[in-house]
């Protein structure tokens, strides 16, 4: 399609992976990472394109693939063409199936009970030609430590497990964060790969038959609306029949056991400059297996590194302003934050301030996770962190501007808006303060009555360090709402001081003190 200003191939956009940002005509490109890994050659290409067409940095996202933010509308086609030269496609977004997420190769991770990569290759093929229309996230982990949190970060989560001498994948259904988080329910146990695929086939057929596409229904909504038992019957029938597919080969798959370490690198806000990306690619080639793994919390990981060389590598990383992510506070992660079209909060500068507090307090021995999301959709997994920030807004209707067109009610994901006598009426009890109604209103008939930061506490996606808590996933509880950044930082400092004093995670502190006492202590 050609116009006076632009020439673009609109077909480029049909498959998704191109997401609009807040700045006019600016998009982000979601770069696909098969099995959440990417080799050094592809990674360098991503770095080069970020420099050539965008702002010279890449976002390592909670969805475990790199994103190039700030690409102008007219350059989308060119970037996509250049990526294809190194056999890289775009990931999918919107109401489409997402590429499956995995933790680590069973040949790399000593804890793996099942091989997530083998399953991931099959899922990749399974989803390849999905027609879209429904959002479906899938995630596979090799053991019950559940490093990539499939019980909450995926509609369908397969968790490698071993019980009474048998191994297989437990299948969880319904996981999601967002406005109404849902912890996936275990629907079937110890499935083979073929049975997992049959489970998934059952689910997709059921979703297409029963799901309300206009309501963007996902597994959690089906379970809530139809009841657990109805859904269980639908997804577990005839599992024994199995379903098979030719796997799409993951080019970073390891054929032999590798008894080495995984080097993790700090990337605050998931942001890594092109120069840093090239350094990481170099290190992966020189010291590792030639590829990088994308973790949920955004810190890039280089598997297959001899830990005796960590000191030498740390020196090399320093040249690019990078450091190893060791014990202590995990990578400070966020979503698009300030540049997302839905963002209500500049999460990036907030987390930079939090980072200063962390450094000042010297919290090196605590297993604590902190993240921030620009809005309650929680793409920055705020619900799964010891301390999770979210930008929140309270909407109000300007009666004389409202035409009763109903678009705000459609934009509302929690049915908090009704049109009565051609006027939008908001139920603030139901409202989750996401601001979608205000942004969607074509006539500016809604405005932000209140705006601020909400803090969630005590969430936990996975317990890696503590074997007693294997398999536990906790959704954070709301501590406080509509506060400003200064107050948010004061509270954060208070929580971290308490965690340091007692040497406990926030979830443990809440367990010990009770949420009421914890709240009154840290808000004092």
């Amino acid at each position: 399609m050609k116009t006076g200003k632009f020439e673009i191939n609109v077909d480029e956009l049909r498959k998704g992976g191109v997401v609009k940002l807040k700045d006019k005509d600016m998009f982000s490109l979601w770069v696909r990472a098969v099995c959440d890994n990417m080799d050094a050659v592809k990674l360098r290409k991503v770095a080069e394109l970020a420099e050539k067409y965008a702002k010279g940095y890449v976002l390592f996202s909670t969805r475990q693939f790199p994103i190039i933010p700030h690409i102008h509308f007219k350059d989308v086609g060119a970037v996509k063409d250049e990526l294809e030269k190194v056999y890289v496609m775009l990931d999918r977004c919107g109401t489409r199936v997402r590429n499956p997420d995995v933790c680590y190769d069973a040949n790399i991770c000593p804890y793996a009970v099942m091989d997530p990569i083998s399953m991931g290759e099959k899922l990749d093929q399974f989803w390849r030609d999905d027609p879209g229309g429904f959002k479906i996230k899938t995630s596979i982990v090799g053991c019950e430590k559940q490093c990539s949190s499939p019980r909450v970060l995926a509609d369908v989560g397969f968790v490698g497990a071993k019980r009474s001498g048998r191994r297989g994948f437990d299948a969880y259904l319904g996981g999601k964060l967002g406005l109404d988080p849902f912890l996936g329910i275990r629907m079937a146990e110890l499935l083979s790969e073929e049975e997992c695929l049959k489970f998934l086939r059952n689910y997709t057929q059921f979703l297409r038959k029963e799901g309300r596409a206009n309501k963007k229904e996902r597994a959690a909504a089906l379970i809530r609306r139809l009841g657990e038992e109805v859904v269980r019957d639908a997804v577990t029938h005839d599992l024994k029949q199995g379903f098979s597919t030719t796997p799409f080969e993951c080019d970073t798959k390891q054929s032999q056991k590798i008894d080495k370490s995984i080097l993790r690198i700090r990337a605050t806000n998931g942001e890594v400059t092109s120069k840093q990306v090239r350094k990481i690619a170099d290190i992966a080639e020189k010291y590792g297996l030639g590829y990088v793994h994308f973790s949920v919390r955004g810190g890039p990981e280089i598997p297959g590194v001899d830990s005796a060389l960590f000191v030498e590598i740390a020196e090399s990383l320093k040249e690019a302003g990078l450091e190893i992510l060791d014990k202590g506070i995990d990578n400070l992660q966020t979503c698009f934050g300030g540049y997302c079209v839905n963002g209500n909060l500049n999460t990036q500068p907030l987390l930079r301030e939090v980072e200063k507090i962390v450094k000042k307090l010297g919290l090196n021995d605590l297993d604590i996770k902190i993240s921030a999301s620009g809005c309650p959709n929680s793409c920055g997994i705020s619900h799964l962190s010891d301390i999770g920030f979210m930008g929140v807004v309270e909407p109000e209707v300007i009666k004389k501007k409202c035409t009763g067109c109903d678009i705000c009610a459609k934009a509302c994901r929690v049915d908090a808006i009704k049109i009565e006598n051609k006027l939008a009426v908001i139920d603030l009890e139901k409202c989750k303060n996401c601001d979608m109604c205000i942004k969607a209103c074509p006539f500016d008939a809604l405005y932000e009555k209140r705006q601020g930061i909400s803090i969630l506490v005590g969430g936990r996606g996975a317990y890696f360090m503590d074997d007693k808590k294997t398999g536990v996933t906790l959704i954070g509880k709301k501590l406080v709402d509509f506060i400003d950044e200064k107050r948010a930082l004061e509270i954060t400092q208070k929580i971290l001081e308490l965690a340091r004093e007692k040497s406990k995670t926030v979830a443990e502190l809440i367990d010990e003190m009770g949420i009421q006492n914890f709240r009154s202590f840290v808000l004092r």
Partner: protein
Amino acid sequence: MEKIKIDQNIDMRGVSCPLNYVKTKLAIEELEVGEVLAVLLDDGEPIVNVPRSAKEDGHQILEVNKIQDHYQVLIKKR
């Protein structure tokens, strides 16, 4: 209400996000400032997203009309 003069029509029914927005945007590019584009959009995600994006690009939404199972949106280029 006075009838608004429509300068251009596009039918974005059956076109998914963000393609419907991009095509709408390209159609707006073709207009002169002050001219009006009428876009047909599906219910669901398109009717929530496309007018919003046009608004964020600085254009004015004049009307949103429900027609059976879809919508007609009138956008004035600014």
